[in-house]
């Protein structure tokens, strides 16, 4: 524990953006009046979308949205790490490389040439990678997008000086708690819930549809069993691969499951 200082100052917080849709920053911007309350409790030194711009002052906590996908990103994330006591990666892009990680298996240079008439002007690395591939990350908040309550829980834990709570359990547990009928058992829908991390509140099954894995892999995810279940529901191996290769395609557990399906090593 740090000894209390004579003139306690408000914690300094920064929100940084890398390659992303901006949706996780909205967990702050959609807080409503709580945003003003939060602004009174912290010193928001950098948050370009909201206005404050100062990436060089040291902060107590840096929230990082987005994946690393350019040369300049590599330098920027090092700079942020060096200026932050605690670094928290928020959302699928920052924790797994995000939906744009789908390009990692493709020929990115060729894609650029197909799209842009001045490909030499496009600075883009071949791969989209999570923050933890480059610097030490103190806490990862998974989800596409992370939710406001999740984000506030992390902020409150840090303000109280305790470690944020990690919930790596499966979406299935949330479904059961809410009492939603299992879409896979009752309707034969290929649901990713058994291998997907909890946190959303089982939103998709609440509407009678399949979870599509936007919170990334849960702990101890049995992807072999789920792949076998998908096959028995009539999914082709290609369709099953697409289930694992979506929002969090580069999360190691989902990537391994897809690779196994591609090489046909499932029985």
């Amino acid at each position, binding site marked *: 524990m740090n000894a209390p200082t004579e003139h306690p100052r408000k914690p300094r917080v920064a929100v940084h953006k890398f*390659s992303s*849709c901006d*949706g996780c920053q909205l967990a702050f911007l959609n807080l409503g009046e709580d945003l003003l309350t939060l602004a009174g409790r912290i010193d928001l030194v950098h948050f370009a979308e909201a206005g*404050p711009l100062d990436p060089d002052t040291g902060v107590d906590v840096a929230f990082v949205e987005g994946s690393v996908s350019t040369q300049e990103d590599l330098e920027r994330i090092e700079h942020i790490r060096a200026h932050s006591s605690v670094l928290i990666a928020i959302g699928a892009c920052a924790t797994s490389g995000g939906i*744009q990680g789908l390009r990692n298996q493709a020929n990115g240079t060729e894609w650029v040439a197909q799209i842009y008439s001045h490909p030499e002007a496009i600075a883009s690395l071949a791969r989209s990678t999570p923050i933890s591939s480059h610097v030490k990350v103190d806490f990862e908040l998974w989800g596409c997008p992370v939710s406001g309550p999740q984000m506030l829980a992390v902020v409150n834990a840090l303000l109280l000086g305790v470690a944020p709570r990690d919930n790596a359990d499966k979406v299935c547990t949330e479904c059961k708690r809410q009492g939603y009928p299992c879409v896979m058992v009752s309707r034969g829908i290929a649901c990713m819930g058994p291998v997907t991390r909890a946190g959303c509140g089982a939103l998709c099954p*609440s509407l009678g549809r399949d979870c599509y894995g936007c919170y990334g892999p849960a702990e101890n995810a049995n992807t072999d069993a789920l792949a076998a279940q998908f096959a028995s529901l009539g999914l082709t191996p290609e369709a099953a691969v697409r289930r694992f290769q979506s929002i969090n395609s580069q999360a190691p557990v989902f990537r391994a499951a897809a690779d196994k399906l591609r090489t046909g090593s499932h029985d």
Partner: protein
Amino acid sequence: MTERRSVAIHVPVLTRVEGEGALDLRIEHGEIAELRLRIFEPPRFFEKFLEGRHYTEIPDMVARICGICPVAYQVTAVQALERLFGVELDPWAHAMRRVFYCGEWIQSHSLHIHLLAAPDFFGCDNAIELARIAPDEVRRGLRIQGLGNELMDLFGARSVHPVGVRVGGFHGAPPLARIRDMREKLRAALPEAEALIRWTAAIPMPQDDQAFVSVATRHPNDYAIERGDIGTSDGLVIGADAFDEHFVERHEPHSTALFSHYHGQPYLVGPLARINLNRDRLPEEVKMLLAETGIALPSRNIFHSLVARAVEILLALHEALRLLDDYRGPDSPWVPVTPRAGVATGCTEAPRGLLWHRYEMDEAGCVISARIVPPTSQNQGRIEEDLRLSLLNFGLDHPDDALRLHCEKVIRNYDPCISCATHFLRLNVERT
């Protein structure tokens, strides 16, 4: 002070816009030598990784193009695919798509007005500072934004990357109790939105007058949001399938977003373009309030965009209320779909303007190729043109800080969503 000075202004990171952009301005001997809006959000290749995907996956994937306007991407995609597949939506699904979309307009517009644009006009750096001088107005804005989010949540279970839309309708229908509760909230928000229009109209704005073509969707009866043809202020009306014949995209090396041209010239999309073209479709009560503000339409002053957004918030509240008023749940929230091979095109009005999608599909219902033209890449050429004219009108002799602030104000009028702007991919390779 010399009259003919040379300055270089670089705004390395534009703040209070969505995504990453920068502005370079070089003035030499009293004239603009260089002016570039640079978009450097790294490309995310959406169109490429949609290839090979099944049509059922498209709504969840395209939502990820933009966290602020996911509904626009989802609804445009399903509209295009439903047209190709010959799907007849249930009237309930038709109406609720519009209500769902209204939620996004309310959310996105209120976020933009209060958190991104308004601070400029009160000498504040951000909304937190603005909340110190105008606490009631900022709180009102955050409440309206919250209501928009709730409306999206009602049909999508969450407002960022909602999960409710499917080709053929919605996955589920909200229970009646939640609809009743929503109607009360929408009704209570009407006077707040009216006050918001008066507040935005009372903010002193620069007087600017520029000639530009407005482009927006047109519908025979409604103020076009989730469906309609494409109309222009010089009289063109075309279906979504003819977009390519009139609008052309080009890559400029300084930007990862492509520039669009209409018959060889830049054009405007977004709230001001819509209100210019579709003012006759506004409900009477909205028209009356707009008349009170003294803003004459069509307007050639881009600074009226702020009021246009406030007007569209009120319109969206009225529309949502009207469509939820005699609500009854559907027999089924979706109809079955049989895919067909062919080309699907669709267009809707994203909060920032016209959004156009094109999908080439195979007979199994998988994507062969995809093209998405978002509003910000369409506005990009217009923003640069506007900056040039507006700066000359403002006067180049102002101090650097004043010039920079003026440029930022101009850019924010367009509410550029730079995250979206970079996803545009051209499949026809052009080399120069």
